[in-house]
């Protein structure tokens, strides 16, 4: 950091100090201090390359009477006090562990001691980021060689950037898979929200990576020329941080929405179990990396981690016990089939909107019916519902009724779904579709109607394309009439609302 920047920052902080005193923004007396809450938490997103911006932020807060205690992710915890001008230094130490939280390894401890001997009090290790506050007014800068400083930053961010690149690659691959490679026609709707979160996360990560490499290459030239490194100023970082915060909020909301959508499919218990498993995994990581904390004897932390572990394991156990005992809407039916063999079937009584009976088809000699599959999905691309019902005859014969209805918000989503039904790998090998004539289309009250023309003789299949809606229906008992399809459409449209 050049002398000029230091001077500018000094005047900024002094101005903040004076301003806070004139406007009476900050606490000025010991009495007021005791009234307000002692600890203040602020949410701020900074990238790992915004070291100067973090420093400036901490110094501004100190001038307002809020003194940095520790950072927990994007949450900065401050303690109230009388406004003062403080000097902070935020550094990246390459040998510190990224996943160990505030764990301090031997290398980091040695480096911290060097800094402490020079008048820098260590406040916190957060991943590779180190927070210091100057105890002496004339404490020297921690880095006096820009080349070495840049090398340290590059090494510190190398693994993180590689991980992010991997995340972008995996997410990009998944995103591509969902949108363009999935064989399941309504997969695009079912995974719609996830794909949107992929896009947002991808943008966020790519933006970070670009900023990081831009910082590196711009400063490499400066360091080679012996000039000090140039970090982004607090003001520009603040603007970027606000946009990132917004993207993060949208991202979290989208993921929450997706979880809520998934709830009916996977059940609250499963969600609870996944959450408990995540807490257990996190606690294990914390335990693995908290070796020196245990040695130091910070008992409460160890106890806290053990308590979380015990709680999570207890929750998991409850989940497993309840999960095993829980059989929702299911019962076992027993009967003798045509060959006289004893059959025990598990059946459920889920209500589905369309059945053979509701279409006016009377099935003879049916002993039971069961809904094997029922799935409803809502996402930014539309709504879809899949149903599959099986009827059991008393001669051991079975009849299936399967249908899917998709309400598409965009034309291209509808085209993709229709295309997958007509040419998708799962159907094309067995069947080929033929488009109905215009007279038939009028009769069906649809934009397009397709029927299977060859393949298995006992399959009756229709693909009906309405405005913004696609209906796919098949059964192996009786052919469909236009009245049936109209009835199905009415029943299913109300389901999709």
């Amino acid at each position, binding site marked *: 950091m050049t002398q000029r920047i230091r001077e500018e920052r000094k005047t900024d902080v002094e101005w903040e100090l004076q301003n806070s005193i004139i406007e009476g923004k900050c606490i000025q007396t010991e009495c007021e201090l005791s009234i307000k809450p002692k600890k203040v938490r602020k949410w701020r997103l900074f990238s790992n390359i915004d070291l100067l911006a973090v420093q400036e932020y901490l110094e501004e807060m100190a001038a307002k009477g809020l003194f940095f205690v520790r950072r927990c992710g994007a949450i900065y915890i401050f303690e109230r006090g009388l406004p003062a001008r403080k000097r902070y230094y935020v550094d990246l130490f390459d040998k510190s562990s990224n996943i160990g939280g505030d764990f301090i390894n031997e290398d980091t401890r040695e480096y911290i001691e*060097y800094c402490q001997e*020079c008048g820098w009090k260590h406040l916190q290790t957060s991943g590779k980021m180190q927070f210091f506050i100057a105890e002496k007014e004339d404490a*020297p800068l921690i880095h*006096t*060689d820009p080349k070495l400083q840049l090398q*340290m930053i590059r090494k510190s961010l190398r693994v993180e950037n590689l991980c992010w690149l991997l995340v972008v690659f995996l997410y990009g691959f998944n995103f591509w898979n969902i949108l363009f490679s999935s064989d399941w026609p309504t997969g695009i709707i079912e995974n719609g929200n996830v794909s949107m979160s992929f896009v947002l996360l991808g943008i966020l990560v790519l933006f970070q990576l670009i900023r990081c490499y831009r910082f590196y290459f711009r400063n490499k030239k400066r360091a080679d020329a012996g000039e000090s490194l140039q970090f982004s100023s607090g003001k520009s970082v603040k603007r970027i941080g606000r946009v990132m915060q917004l993207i993060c909020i949208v991202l979290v909301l989208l993921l929450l929405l997706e979880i809520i959508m998934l709830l009916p499919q996977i059940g609250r218990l499963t969600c609870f179990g996944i959450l408990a498993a995540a807490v257990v995994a996190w606690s294990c990581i914390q335990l693995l990396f908290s070796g020196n904390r245990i040695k130091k004897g910070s008992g409460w932390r160890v106890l806290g981690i053990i308590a979380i572990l015990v709680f999570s394991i207890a929750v998991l156990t409850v989940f497993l016990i309840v999960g095993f005992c829980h059989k929702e809407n299911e019962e076992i039916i027993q009967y003798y089939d045509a060959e006289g063999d004893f059959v025990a079937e598990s059946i459920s009584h889920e209500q589905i909107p369309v059945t053979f009976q509701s279409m006016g088809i009377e099935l003879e000699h049916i002993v039971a019916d069961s809904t094997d599959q029922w799935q409803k999905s809502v996402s930014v691309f539309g709504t879809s519902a899949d149903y599959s019902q099986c009827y059991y005859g008393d001669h051991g014969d079975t009849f299936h009724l399967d249908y899917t209805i998709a309400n598409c918000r965009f034309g291209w989503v509808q085209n993709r779904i229709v295309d997958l039904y007509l040419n998708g790998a799962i159907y094309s090998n067995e069947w080929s579709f033929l488009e109905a004539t215009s007279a038939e289309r009028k009769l069906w009250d649809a934009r397009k109607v397709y029927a299977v023309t060859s393949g298995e003789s006992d399959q009756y299949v229709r693909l009906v394309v309405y405005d913004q809606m696609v209906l796919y229906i098949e059964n192996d008992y009786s052919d469909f009439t236009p009245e049936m399809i109209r009835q199905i459409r009415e029943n299913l449209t109300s389901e999709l609302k």
Partner: protein
Amino acid sequence: MSREKFQTLSEPMYYILLALLQEQCGVDIMARVQDISNGRVQVGPGTLYALIGKFLENHLIRETKVEGRKRSYIITEDGKDLLRKEYQRLRLMVREGDSLLGGDPV
């Protein structure tokens, strides 16, 4: 030894190696560098830590003793060779500069 890395020494490198002609513990090196350079060169703790790591890795210095967490170091023969080479290079540069500038400040 990857001497290619140290074909020319940066100012902090040169002064740290000079300071380590005598056995010094890590923190004392910073004060010694300031003494040698009459306060002109200051080596920050982060820079010192990184450079000590590099020097140890390339056997230019060696650890002499560990007292608690205090580690002391001294220059090795390889380190001295490198330092002498750098000294000769700097002298040559000054001599060549002298012939043109005549020792006058620019």
